[in-house]
């Protein structure tokens, strides 16, 4: 079942000023329940503008957005309800922490949804468990945590609202490799525990290869490709045309193929590469 449908979405910034600018142009796509969708594209290609429409922070200049077959702008007064259905984690979410304790900060979202007392406490603790925020952190000030921990707490704040769809805008930006891996794990675990639909914006093709079922490629405000991750990465030339690229490991294997080795064309993650190489080592050259 399609949980999210975007139809002919166009957004124009600065309509009546000299700074007029089409940020998103005629974008349509559907997301199935439980899918992980990746959005890739250059800086300024309209990715962030696009996702801000999904929870009604921006109103489309043209076009519609349906969540479970309901147009989210049917009832503009109820737009805040959409925000608990669609969670949005912004870039560098740790800059939005403000409460005195980690617990209070994670509870901010659920509290705004009307949860109180035991229910609220249960919700916060459940979320912390899923994404691995330790109990001893809960009474600390969020400003005493390390960068990666802050990011995790900020993400927990959105996850605690239990959204059906959760959108991440570059969740791993500015983190070290270990931090990146941890955040990817957090997203993965959350999806497994709740069955939520996940949308991720990222510049890292490696992260995308690891986690995304489908990819949506944006260039200059338009949707240029929308397909299964492997189909997109098999199309390296088209990606390079718009200034993007395939994962590094795929590039290595592409070069090997150019040198005349016969290798499969579905190697997008290091794990898969290791698997293929081991098979070759064992003598099964047609891996």
């Amino acid at each position, binding site marked *: 079942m399609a949980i999210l449908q975007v139809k002919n979405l166009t957004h124009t910034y600065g309509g009546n000023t*000299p700074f007029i600018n089409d940020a998103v142009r005629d974008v349509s796509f559907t997301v199935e329940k439980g899918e992980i969708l990746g959005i890739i594209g250059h800086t300024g290609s309209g990715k962030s503008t696009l996702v801000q429409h999904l929870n009604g922070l921006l109103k489309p200049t043209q076009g519609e957005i349906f969540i479970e077959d309901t147009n989210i702008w049917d009832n503009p007064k109820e737009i805040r309800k959409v925000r608990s259905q669609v969670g949005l984690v912004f870039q560098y979410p740790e*800059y*939005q922490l403000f409460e005195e304790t980690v617990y209070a900060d994670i509870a*901010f979202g659920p509290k705004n949804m009307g949860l109180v007392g035991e229910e609220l406490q249960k919700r916060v603790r459940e979320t912390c468990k899923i994404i691995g925020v330790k109990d001893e952190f809960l009474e600390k000030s969020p400003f005493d945590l390390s960068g990666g921990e802050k990011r995790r707490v900020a993400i927990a*704040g959105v996850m605690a609202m239990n959204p059906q769809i959760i959108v991440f805008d570059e969740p791993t930006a500015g983190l070290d490799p270990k931090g990146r891996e941890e955040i990817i794990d957090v997203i993965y675990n959350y999806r497994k525990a709740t069955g939520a639909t996940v949308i991720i914006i990222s510049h890292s093709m490696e992260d995308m290869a690891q986690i995304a079922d489908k990819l949506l490629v944006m260039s200059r405000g338009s949707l240029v490709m929308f397909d299964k991750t492997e189909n997109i990465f098999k199309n390296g030339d088209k990606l390079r045309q718009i200034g993007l690229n395939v994962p590094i490991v795929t590039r290595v294997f592409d070069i090997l193929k150019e040198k005349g080795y016969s290798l499969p064309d579905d190697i997008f993650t290091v794990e898969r590469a290791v698997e293929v190489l081991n098979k070759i080592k064992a003598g099964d050259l047609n891996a």
Partner: protein
Amino acid sequence: MLKDITFGQYVETRSPIHRADPRVKLVLLILAVVFIFLSGNFFSLMLSLAFVLATILVSRIPLKMYLKNLKAVLPIIILTSLINMFYGDEANGVLVSFWKLTITYDGLYRAFFMALRIILLIIISSSLTYTTTPNDLTDGIESLLSPLKFIGLKSAVHTLALMMTIALRFIPTLVEEAGKIMNAQKARGADLESGSLKERIKALIPILIPLLISSVRRAYELAEAMECRCYNGGEGKTRMKQLKISSIDFCLIGFSALFCAGIILLNIYF
């Protein structure tokens, strides 16, 4: 809401006013403000109006941009004109009278007069920031304040100018940052638009605290970046862009002098 803040926003249209010397523009702006205040009768106010309209035309910046600035001060304009409406001379005819209040024709005229005066002042002031980049503006201010050096405030002039440059430079950054934080808290279900006054003030806390923290962080980063580039104050610093008075400036000065003379004459003869 935040998008409406246009103060400090520079709009490039390459008009003659854009190319004029910032020092000249600053002095002429002060003169224009004084003389708009001095226009005491209908005719001199109309001359002020004509002067402001001419400025808008020459600046090639759409009228809409100027009007946007007025939106923010609309309450002040309305309040001033409302109050003025009741302070007229009753001898010149009473329009309506109820309870202890009377609206006179004289009062209405005054209200209109005050409103137009404020509008003109705001438009002429915004024409400076629209046509002058923040950097030019502070260069101009620094240059105009430079006589202070002779009374023992040598480093103060430069520091003051630098502080202004930085403050102006960071207005759009902070506005953008505030917008981002607002969106993030809205995404977490924060309600910024409804509720009682007390609730609304409380709703600002999740925005103000992160904004404050990031301003302090930015200040540290900027200070460090400046030190890394060997910043050590204004001592011995020369300029890449020297300010020069050109023929455009003389035209602007002449034009403004005509305006000032016109106001004085109209004030005397009517």
